[in-house]
């Protein structure tokens, strides 16, 4: 039935229209839909407040009237109710809409749809001509992303099971801070409440659903948390010198930091590039087989030779 909806809309209108705080008894007397015993009205009102808060509508509690010292008053401040990005141009509407469109068919498409409605309700036609033909797309359907973002914005702690390198499920409890996406993977950052440090988790390695724990607003983000520097400097950078067969190992070549690729070996280029994770770098070099020969660092070269010898012994 739509009685509840009707009451919620009427409550919103009453609280928005009032210039002063109005008391609960005034609300029960004047707002349509509050019926039953005093106790049931009370319960109804508490639930309604929560429901409106979940819609992002903040009800302010206060009291200015000395006569009603012990009775709290309520109101919704219009500037906390209305669209908060201020005046927007038609070009900005196009950009904002296009950004929301990126979630069509992806996780969070519900929020994208409601955001689009609000943007359209502003009544400014988007200026499609002013924006090039772009089709952004958030390629993720994992509902854990939505749970994580909900917990981040409401400052709620979460627990989940995380797959270790040995494929064992480990219990984690974190205060979630942020999400990022790099190289096609989505990551969750947060304060690990057991390890007491900032950790990152690949969202597709979370086994099962993330569970929110405890109250919202139950933690503060550490002051020194800096998403931009965290997501770019996970490990220290090392330099490597590599010979690449001319025209081969395109992806590696594109990461070269040296200005010249000239080498003393005919048919081969010599490049310098940087890497972070040594194990991953070794596996990447081996992918190219006899098209990429690493000269330095020595430990990388030695490890590769060792693995090749193992391969020859095993399969040769």
């Amino acid at each position, binding site marked *: 039935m*739509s009685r509840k*909806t009707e009451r*919620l*809309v*009427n409550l*919103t209108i009453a609280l*928005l*229209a009032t210039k002063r705080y109005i008391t609960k008894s005034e609300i029960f007397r004047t707002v*349509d839909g509050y019926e039953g015993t005093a106790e049931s009205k009370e319960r109804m009102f508490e639930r309604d407040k929560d*429901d409106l808060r979940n819609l*992002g509508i903040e009800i302010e509690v206060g009291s200015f009237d000395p006569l009603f010292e012990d009775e709290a008053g309520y109101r919704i401040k219009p500037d906390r*109710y*209305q669209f*908060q990005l201020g005046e927007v141009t038609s*070009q*900005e509407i196009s*950009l*904002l809409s296009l*950004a*929301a*469109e*990126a979630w*069509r*068919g992806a996780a*969070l498409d*519900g*929020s994208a*749809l*409601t*955001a689009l*409605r*609000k943007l359209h*309700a502003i*009544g400014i036609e988007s200026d499609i001509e002013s924006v090039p033909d772009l*089709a*952004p797309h958030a390629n993720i359907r994992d509902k854990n992303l939505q749970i994580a*973002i909900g917990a*981040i914005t409401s400052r709620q702690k979460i627990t989940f099971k995380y797959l270790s*390198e040995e494929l064992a*499920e480990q219990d984690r409890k974190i205060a979630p801070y*942020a999400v990022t996406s790099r*190289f096609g993977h989505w990551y969750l950052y947060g304060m690990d409440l057991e390890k007491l440090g900032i950790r990152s988790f690949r969202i597709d390695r979370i086994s099962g659903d993330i569970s929110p724990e405890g109250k919202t607003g139950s933690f503060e*983000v550490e002051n020194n948390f800096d998403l931009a520097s965290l997501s770019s400097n996970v490990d220290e950078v090392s330099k490597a010198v590599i010979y690449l067969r001319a025209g081969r190992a*395109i*992806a590696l070549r594109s990461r070269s930091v040296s200005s010249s690729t000239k080498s*003393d070996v005919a048919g*081969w280029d010599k490049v310098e590039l940087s890497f972070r994770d040594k194990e991953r770098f070794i*596996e*990447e070099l081996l*992918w*190219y087989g*006899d098209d990429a*020969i690493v000269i330095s660092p*020595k430990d990388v070269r030695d490890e590769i*030779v060792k693995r*090749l010898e193992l391969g*020859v012994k*095993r*399969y*040769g």
Partner: protein
Amino acid sequence: MAKQATSPIAKTARLLDLVPFIATHQGIAIKDLAREFAVTTEELLDDLNTLWMCGLPGYTPLELIDLYFESGYVSIRNAEILQKVRLLTKEELVVIAIGLDFLKETLSKDREDLSLAIGSLQGKIKSLIGDIAQVTPTVDSSHRAIILRSLKERRNLEIEYHSLIRDQITTRAITPLELGEDRGVEVLMAYCRTAKGFRTFRLDNVKKADLLDSSEVISNSKKESEELFRAKCRVDARLRTTFERFRLDTDIATSPGLSSSKGITVEVTSFSQDWLVRNFMSTLANTEITEPAELAKTVGAKAQATLELYKNPHFSS
């Protein structure tokens, strides 16, 4: 988009959004309004009927919201209190912030104006929710837009494609069939006119895409079956990374019967023998091919050839 739940809360949200929307689109067709709000006409009419009962305390005709219906079109009056567009929720702001990141990263250099406009919007959003999301797309949004257009207009495409398996960049004329997803990677199924066969292209490896004037009709239903290569191997370390590399479902590692003290034996498959060889080269330290023998031999020969180069004085350290 997902169908909206019709809980009283979702319905309330919709009503609160309907008011400003109708106010800026006075005389809108009921049909269009239903489409905008992703509901059926019946649901929308029910919404409007509810709205009619709402207004300021007192609830006399003077205080109630007024809706005018005229042969399938609707207008609204006396709804000033709710006429402001509602604020964006935090989740909606995050959704937009991430979408803006996607856009910003694929703008061409000559659109500094847009880059600035996006930056200023992102600044506003960050001041409201903090710095809680940062994304770098792997697929160029302009390439995706061209692919979508080619599918819609049924036109052929010319793409520059980087095949990681072949370690080659080639230019191909293709007839796109459909966009899809393969284990988290966006792919385009297409008929490749250059290779004369059906191919799957990873969008993140498309380096360039241009619409061609030609078009072809290809039946997508009978995709010629490509040969699937299978191999069995034992994985004894770096299980998660290796499972991800071979695109294996991690569930099978935890299911009983597969695991032994000497690692886990799994079957890996691919349409490309070359892909298998390269992956087994990469994982020499922690996988061992048990069958087929020819594949093991190919990997062994590759390892031998590479080792010889390492022993060559030209490449000594």
